[in-house]
């Protein structure tokens, strides 16, 4: 290949794109891997399905130190149609685990609200495990203007 002006230009654009992609994908993947592993630990290897779970969180949180988060699952909470537990992750926190809620028939409804810390703008993930072994999840992105978790 002759080194023409056009070839050189193409090469450098390609290299720049590669560097950009590498820089962006690297750290994001690391966090997701940790969360991914934690989800699998929780479900016992079952990949979560869509639906049933509703995660409610503000689109924009002005203060990451206290972000109201609510999870609910569409369930009769009786007999076999029972939610056993819901686990919540914050994908971009130093430690993605947030909380695990455990329900019983006495709960009456699979609904829990609490306040959490978010270090930065990130995805919040809720995974629910039903009594029959099925697993469902919901994800919501929360934009954080002031981070929690010290820093």
């Amino acid at each position, binding site marked *: 290949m002759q080194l023409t002006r056009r070839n050189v230009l193409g090469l450098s654009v390609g290299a720049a794109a590669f560097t950009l992609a590498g820089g962006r994908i690297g750290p994001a993947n690391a966090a997701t891997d940790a969360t991914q592993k934690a989800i699998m630990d929780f479900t016992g290897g079952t990949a979560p399905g869509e639906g049933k779970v509703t995660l409610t969180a503000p689109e924009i949180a002005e203060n990451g130190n206290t972000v109201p988060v609510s999870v609910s699952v569409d369930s009769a909470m009786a007999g076999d149609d029972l939610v056993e537990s819901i686990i919540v992750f914050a994908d971009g926190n130093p*430690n993605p685990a947030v909380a695990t809620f*455990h*329900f019983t028939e006495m709960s009456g409804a699979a609904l*829990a609200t*609490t306040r*959490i*810390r978010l270090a930065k703008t990130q995805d919040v993930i809720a995974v629910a495990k039903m009594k029959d072994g099925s697993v469902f999840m919901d994800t919501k992105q929360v934009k954080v203007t002031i981070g929690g*978790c*010290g820093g």
Partner: protein
Amino acid sequence: MASKPRIKVPKSASAGEVITIKTLISHEMESGQRKDKDGNPIPRQIINKFTCSFEGQTVFECDLDPAISSNPYFEFNAKVAQSGTFKFTWVDDDGSVYEAEAPIEVN
């Protein structure tokens, strides 16, 4: 570390009704991620477990991680069939246990 918990439970309900319970306890929930003025990490100290039971039966439980905000707040539901007392328990990292109770009349 923690001060007296605050509980909101309806005074009465009809049998089989699903009621809403709100709880809050004052606690710093030191995440272990922060540093003091000299740059030394402040050790983690959080409440790691919250339980609500009704007459000996578990209603709702939560395992807490440092990402729960200070002064942990919980809102959840309970289905009551007869009158009785709700018992709430918070367990601190240092082993302390904070407890609270709230009665409900079912008619």
